[in-house]
C-alpha cells in the first residue's frame, strides 16, 4: 500500500459510506495532480518525503474529512452557546451552594475529620459538575444536529427572565438576602449528625422537582413542544405513561422518602441499602414495563406524526454507530430519538441491576459507624 492509499484510507474511514467512493476519487485526483505538478517543477520523480510534505499541505485526514461533514461543525454552535453557558454556570453555582451548605453543616456538627468532609465536598462538586457539563453538551449536540429549538428558547417573555439571574451569585444575595428562609439556611437550629455527602439532599430536591412536575404543580413551558427546522412539533406521551402514572409517582415519592430518611440517619447503612434495593427493583420493573410497551412518545407536526418507539432489535451496536447518519425530517428525528430512548432504557436497567447488587452486598456487610 503506498502513501496515497494509506492517506486516503484514513480519510475514507471518517466519511459517510454513500459519499465515500466519490470523495476519495476526487481527492486521489487532487493528490496526483499535485504530485505531477511538483515533479514537473523539479524535473524528476518525487521522493517519499516530498510526497509526504504535499499530503501534509493538503491536511490531516481527520481535518480533511471533517470539512465534508454536512452537520454542524461544533457540538455547541454560536446560537445555542449562550444557553449552554447559562445552564452550566447556573448549574455549577447551584451545586457549589449545595456542597457548601452540606460542608458547613458537616463542619459545625462536629465530624471527627474536617479534612475528609472538605475532600468529600470537592469530590461531590467536581463529579456532579463534570456530569452536568457532559449532559448539557450532549443535549446541545442533539439540538444542533437535528436543528431542534425548544419553545422556551424562542418564545420568551421579559417577565420570565428572572431565573436567568441565577448565573450571577451576587443576584442571589440581592433577591433572597435577609429573608427568614435564608437565615434558617445559614443558622440551622437542629443539630444533625455528620453527613456522608450531599447526594441525599441533591437527590431529594431533584426528585421533588420531578414529582411536582409529574402531578402538574410545576410547569415547564415548551417542554413538550419543539421547533424542528423552523416548524412547530409537539411531543405527546404514549398510553404507557398514563398506565404507569401511579406506579411512577409511588417510585419517585418512595425515593424521596429514602433520601429523607438518609438525611436524618445517614449512617443507617443497612436500612438504606434494604430500601434502595427494594425501590431499585421497582425501578427495574418500571423500566422493563416501559421498554416492553414499545411506544413511548409521538411527534406531531402539521398533521404528520412519527412514533418514538423501540424494541430489542434496536439494541444493536451497528445501529448505534450510525446514529448521526439519519435523515433530519420528522420520521428521521423520531427514528434517532427511538434509538436513543431504547439505549437509555437499557442503560438505566443495567445501572439498576448494579444498584440492586451493590445494595444487597451492603446488606450483608457489617454496619460501619463514624467514630464518636
Amino acid at each position: 500500500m503506498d502513501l496515497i492509499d494509506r492517506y486516503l484510507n484514513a480519510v475514507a474511514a471518517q466519511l459517510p459510506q454513500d459519499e465515500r467512493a466519490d470523495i476519495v476519487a476526487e481527492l486521489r485526483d487532487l493528490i496526483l495532480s499535485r504530485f505531477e505538478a511538483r515533479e514537473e517543477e523539479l524535473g524528476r520523480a518525487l521522493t517519499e518525503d516530498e510526497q509526504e510534505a504535499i499530503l501534509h499541505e493538503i491536511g490531516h485526514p481527520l481535518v480533511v474529512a471533517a470539512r465534508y461533514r454536512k452537520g454542524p461543525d461544533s457540538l455547541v454552535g454560536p446560537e445555542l452557546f449562550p444557553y449552554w453557558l447559562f445552564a452550566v454556570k447556573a448549574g455549577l453555582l447551584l451545586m457549589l451552594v449545595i456542597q457548601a451548605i452540606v460542608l458547613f453543616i458537616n463542619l459545625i456538627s462536629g465530624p471527627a475529620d474536617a479534612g475528609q468532609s472538605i475532600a468529600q465536598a470537592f469530590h461531590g462538586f467536581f463529579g456532579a459538575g463534570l456530569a452536568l457539563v457532559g449532559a448539557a453538551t450532549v443535549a446541545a449536540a442533539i439540538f444542533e444536529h437535528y436543528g431542534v429549538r425548544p419553545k422556551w428558547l424562542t418564545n420568551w417573555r421579559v417577565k420570565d427572565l428572572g431565573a436567568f439571574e441565577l448565573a450571577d451569585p451576587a443576584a442571589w444575595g440581592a433577591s433572597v438576602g435577609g429573608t427568614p428562609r435564608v437565615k434558617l439556611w445559614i443558622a440551622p437550629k437542629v443539630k444533625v449528625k455528620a453527613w456522608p455527602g450531599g447526594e441525599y439532599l441533591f437527590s431529594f430536591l431533584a426528585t421533588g422537582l420531578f414529582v411536582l412536575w409529574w402531578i402538574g404543580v410545576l410547569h415547564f413551558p415548551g417542554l413538550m413542544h419543539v421547533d424542528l427546522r423552523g416548524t412547530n412539533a409537539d411531543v405527546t406521551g404514549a398510553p404507557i405513561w398514563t398506565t404507569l402514572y401511579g406506579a411512577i409517582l409511588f417510585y419517585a415519592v418512595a425515593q424521596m422518602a429514602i433520601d429523607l430518611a438518609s438525611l436524618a440517619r445517614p449512617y443507617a447503612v443497612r436500612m438504606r441499602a434494604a430500601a434502595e434495593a427494594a425501590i431499585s427493583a421497582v425501578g427495574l420493573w418500571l423500566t422493563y414495563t416501559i421498554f416492553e410497551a414499545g411506544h413511548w412518545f409521538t411527534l406531531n407536526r402539521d398533521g404528520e406524526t412519527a412514533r418514538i418507539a423501540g424494541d430489542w432489535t434496536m439494541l444493536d451496536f451497528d445501529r448505534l454507530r450510525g446514529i448521526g447518519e439519519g435523515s433530519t425530517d420528522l420520521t428521521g428525528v423520531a427514528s434517532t430519538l427511538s434509538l436513543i430512548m431504547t439505549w437509555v432504557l437499557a442503560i438505566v436497567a443495567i445501572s439498576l441491576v448494579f444498584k440492586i447488587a451493590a445494595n444487597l452486598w451492603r446488606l450483608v456487610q457489617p454496619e460501619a459507624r463514624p467514630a464518636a
Partner: protein
Amino acid sequence: MRHTLCVTHYVTAGELMVVDPELFESMRLELRRGSLVLAVLARLREERYGYTLRQALASDGLEMEESTLYPLLRRLESQGLLTSEWREEEKRKKRFYRLSPMGEAMLSALTDEWRGISASLDRIL
C-alpha cells in the same frame, strides 16, 4: 499570492501604532471568507475541475486550501448552484464543475450585493 503581515506600523493621529499580526490574520480571514464563495461561483462560469480551479483562483490572488475548496464545491453542488460530471482527461478521471442556471442567477444576485457593500465601504473608508 499569500498575504503575510509581520509587523506593520501605521500612523494614526500622530501616534505610531503597531498592528498585531495574529489579530490582523484572523480578521483578514474573516473578511475574505464570504467573498470566496463569490469567487468560486464566478470562476465556474467556465467548466473546471478542482485542481485547475484552485490554480485559477491562486492566479487571481485568492489562495484557497484544498481542504476548504473541495468540500465547498460539493456543498454548492448539493445546493443546486453547480453541476458536475466525471470525465477522463490526461488518462485520469476528473470531476468537472460548472455553474448551473440557478448558480448563474445566484452569482448575479450576489454580485449586485457585493457591489453594493463595496460602494458603501468605499464611501465610509
